[in-house]
């Protein structure tokens, strides 16, 4: 799953900012026309369903997303998660005892805090009577946390749930080798000195070689970056296109940051360090600079580089989800409804990162909407090549007919509505925390840009994918 990129954008000198104003070629000339027609009429006035509780996001926050190995490097995951929870409490002023349940998503688990949701909640001062659990579903872990919350509320089990996600890539669990572990466990059980000595005599130097968390997909042994490179090649996406898209992401993120649009970010006073106030991975560069980088995975002719991939990130996010009537009773003005959602999965080898392509038409169909109804797209950007491959696949009748069993393509999302405030490529991608960021970005953009429906979509390791419709809460 995790493309442990050893390079980061740090390699790229930060050159002139506005000289290289974003210059993305329109992928489709018809997209503008579609966009014009879109905002006029909707297929449906609302996605509210009779006899089903409306579920709202009251608000959501995240810690600044930082490059791994920077200011968060001495923390533990639950510290970051706690910061997100505290930030959420502060932002929403929700009384702690109202929260019925807490769910967090995470991917690389710290073994000491395997139920990181519980440890963070206790540390953030939540009642010890509030249960918490942790979910994992690779890059869509916090999406899973949110939809689990939706399920709990829709079924009437809870009224108020906090969902979030956390990832700390600055520190990962590196284990002793299996042989060493076995020896140590045997040693533990040995009763006599003779037994101990006989166990120790079996020690070999290679027992000491450590075991790293899997970098590659377990089922195929292929790293995600490698798979992304093959995916880009399969869809004939050039290095230039990928670099251009990455530059777009960084430029848009920079603009959003400068204009103060990333309002979900809450400052975090890191113990022993300065207060962190903003994401530090946003670095618009130039196409020339990016072109100099060597391929990171398929050498020497691949197209995926450090500059057009998401980087290793530390960060946490949290959202407050409530039943609508509960939120209104408590006097909240919610930001958005969480509507239909969909999980999909497909071949983990050749279609590892095509989740959004599979999930998008399904969730639109389920909601009774079309591409034209969507005002805001927030797609997770694992790699430029992955995003562009998904866009091409969504625009291909051939792919829809031959691999998805559909009659026709779902269509291309208009790029001017797509990840307008940057994406995982530039803001960063703490695996377990990205889902909440996507939902909050969609909700905040709907408020800011105007519009009713947002579509969130993401791919994940294991060849899985997710999409959800976010509906703006009427003003």
């Amino acid at each position, binding site marked *: 799953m995790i493309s442990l990129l050893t390079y980061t954008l740090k390699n790229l000198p930060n050159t002139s900012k506005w000289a290289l104003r974003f210059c993305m070629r329109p992928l489709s000339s018809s997209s503008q026309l579609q966009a014009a027609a879109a905002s006029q009429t909707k297929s449906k006035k609302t996605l509210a369903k009779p006899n089903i509780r409306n579920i709202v996001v009251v608000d959501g926050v995240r810690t600044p997303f930082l490059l791994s190995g920077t200011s968060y490097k001495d923390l533990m995951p639950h510290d970051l998660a706690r910061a997100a929870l505290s930030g959420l409490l502060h932002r929403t002023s929700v009384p702690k005892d109202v929260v019925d349940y807490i769910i967090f998503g995470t991917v690389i688990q710290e073994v000491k805090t395997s139920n990181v949701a519980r440890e963070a909640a206790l540390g953030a001062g939540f009642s010890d009577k509030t249960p918490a659990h942790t979910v994992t579903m690779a890059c869509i872990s916090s999406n899973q946390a949110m939809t689990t919350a939706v399920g709990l509320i829709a079924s009437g089990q809870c009224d108020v749930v906090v969902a979030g996600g956390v990832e700390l890539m600055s520190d990962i669990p590196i284990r002793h080798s299996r042989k060493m572990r076995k020896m140590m466990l045997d040693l533990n059980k040995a009763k006599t000195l003779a037994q101990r000595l006989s166990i120790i005599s079996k020690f070999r130097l290679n027992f000491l070689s450590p075991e790293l968390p899997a970098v590659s997909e*377990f*089922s*195929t*042994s292929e790293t995600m970056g*490698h798979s992304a490179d*093959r*995916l880009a*090649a*399969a*869809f*004939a996406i050039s290095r230039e296109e990928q670099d251009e898209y990455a530059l777009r992401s960084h430029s848009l993120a920079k603009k959003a940051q400068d204009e103060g649009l990333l309002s979900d970010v809450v400052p975090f006073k890191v113990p022993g360090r300065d207060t962190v106030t903003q994401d530090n991975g946003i670095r618009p560069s130039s196409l020339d600079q990016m072109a100099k980088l060597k391929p990171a995975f*398929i050498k020497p*002719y691949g197209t995926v580089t450090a500059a057009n991939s998401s980087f290793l990130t530390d960060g946490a996010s949290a959202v407050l989800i409530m039943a609508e009537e509960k939120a209104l009773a408590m006097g909240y003005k919610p930001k958005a409804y969480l509507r239909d959602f969909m999980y999909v999965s497909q*071949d983990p*080898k*050749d*279609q590892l990162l095509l989740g959004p392509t599979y999930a998008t038409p399904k969730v639109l169909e389920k909601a009774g909407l079309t591409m034209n109804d969507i005002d805001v797209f927030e797609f997770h950007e694992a790699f430029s090549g992955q995003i562009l*491959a998904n866009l*091409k*696949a969504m625009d*291909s009748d*051939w*792919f829809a007919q*031959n*691999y998805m069993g559909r009659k026709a393509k779902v269509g291309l999302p208009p790029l001017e509505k797509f990840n307008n405030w940057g994406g995982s490529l530039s803001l960063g991608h703490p695996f377990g925390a990205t889902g909440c960021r996507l939902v909050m970005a969609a909700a905040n953009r709907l408020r800011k840009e105007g519009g009713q429906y947002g579509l969130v979509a993401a791919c994940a390791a294991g060849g899985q994918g997710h999409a959800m419709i976010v509906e703006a809460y009427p003003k």
Partner: protein
Amino acid sequence: MVASRAIGSLSRFTASRTLRCSGYICRSFTRSSALLTRTHINYGVRGDVAVIRINSPNSKVNTLSQELHSEFMEVMNEVWSSSQIRSAVLISTKPGCFIAGADLNMLNSCTTSQEVTQISQEAQKMFEKLEKSTKPVVAAINGSCLGGGLEVGIPAAFDMMLTGRGIRADRAKKMGLVDQLVEPLGPGVKPPEERTIEYLEEVAITFAKGLADKKITPKRDKGLVETFYLTELTSYALSIPFVRQQIYKKVEEKVRKQTKGLYPAPLKIIDVVKTGIEQGSNAGYLSESQTFGELAMTKESKALMGLYRGQTQCKKNKFGAPQKEVKQLAVLGAGLMGAGIAQVSVDKGLQTILKDTTLPALGRGQQQVFKGLNDKVKKKTLTSFERDAMFSNLIGQLDYRGFEKADMVIEAVFEDLNLKHRVLKEAEAVIPDHCVFASNTSALPIGEIATVSKRPEKVIGMHYFSPVDKMQLLEIITTEKTSKDTTASAVDVGLRQGKVIIVVKDGPGFYTTRCLTPMMSEVIRILQEGVGPKKLDSLTTSFGFPVGAATLVDEVGVDVAKHVAENLGKEFGERFAGGSLEMLQQMISKGFLGRKSGKGFYIYQEGVKNKNLNSDMDSILASLKMPSQPDVSSDEDIQYRLVTRFVNEAILCLQEGVLATPTEGDIGAVFGLGFPPCLGGPFHFVDLYGAQKIVDRLRKYEAAYGKQFTPCQLLVDHANNPNKKFYQ
């Protein structure tokens, strides 16, 4: 296994294929007007890179035929003379095949070694020109690149890339045969195979440009052998003549040991390489082409090429597609055979129920399947994940649950007619109407098994060979009542299990067991006449059998051998006589059942490689000793007494209609019984060595031993008419 190794050693011939598919429409990607005039090759220019695309029309594979040669030379000359072109890319537009080697049909149509030599020389010229090309040529290989095809690839001026298929491409890169790998792509906006070739071409063009611009330098700059296989240290050692001589000697010894001198090609290849290194490349080339010509005309070459063709034929379902494809298989009995059948089914994605009667027996079978798959993980031909996914296709159980959904049941219970009747009745009580019931037996007539069946048209024999995952042959036995669709279904399953299939008529011993039994009878007689097991083994292996005759009895199992010999002896009477079954009886009573009991003619111990003679056999052998007849007991006579009885019985099977074609007879004998591959099977053997000579031998032995050696009518007909051949 032995057969495949032997075939592999004649790499150039056997690597090519003769599959023909008339419906194939040649796709053209070209932008060149030359398309109209050339049929195998077209080329276009991208910038300053010539892209040469090979695509033989009407064929699934590209083979080095004469037309391809000449068109290729034509195109290359254009490339070399054009000032606009600075480098070239060589690619096949057929998914999964670059050049599969020399065209077998082309070689087959040659009648003299001179013709073959000439073809070989033309090819050499082409390779040499490529090697000396002033413009970089990149060979982009997708799929099989064998024999001569590999030579198109390896001249030193070449820079190669492969699209990887598992470890093979990996290994090619490690050996230095290729410079760069391109992984196969998944689906995009067009079929993966098509896009993969495009991508390979794109990458190859980038490389060709880079080479022409000197931005990329090929790492190889030394001579052929050195850079491909050897490190610097060894290449220094090789520059010392003495060291070289030692190496030649070692290699030769090893090859001699492996081939027992029965396959001429590997030794000749060493000679040619030696000539090339010691006397310079020109002498080497000359020697190569001459030797190639000579070898193409040898009997061994004809026999092996024949086997290759036969194997291809036996990989097709001539009974057509079955009405209902088998999706759910059930195997009764989790013994060695049952578990083996399950293994070759689950690893092809076939859902399989493995049923036995006791938990320990079932567990042993499941473990056998797991071990078989796990060994592939250790060899890195499977990932542990693939192993798990395959193993999940296997359901082990003790009852008949789920049999109502089975499309085919293969029983592999003990060779006992009453037991077979019982499981057939039990199974028929639960299986659906369309379900095929197949019996895995080596000798029990299928017709007799089917007597208790309510639906004999659905009963068929599927005779697998042990070990099932290694032995390629499957003998399918049809009774008069077996329906055509049942046969089609059995062949279809067998092909999916990766088997080479012969379909024979029901009868005692079918084809394979029936041929083997008279030979086994002769084995016992020879032992009784005082030839020791070791001597007998060495006589048979030096004739080309992969396993010695005495060892074979141990492998098959002495009890099984006796059981079969008794049954068939009753059926066929005097013709199957020879040695005394008393020997097997005494061995059984002492518990010498062969490998499975740890003792037979030899002693078998876990982990001990060199097996020792079982000295307790001496008394048995002594008590049954018969006088030998000196005029038919020379080493050669002993070999021929064994082989002629085998061959005579095989031909009788064809005469009686048990066999439908000589091809199936040859394939069955070589792939199932280890008949010497260099002889090409009993029918090729008769064709190539002359029926008359074989009849003469049989008559000589007939005079000494009687009816057991009487040649059958069909063989006599062939001897009387030298124009009559099994293969025209």
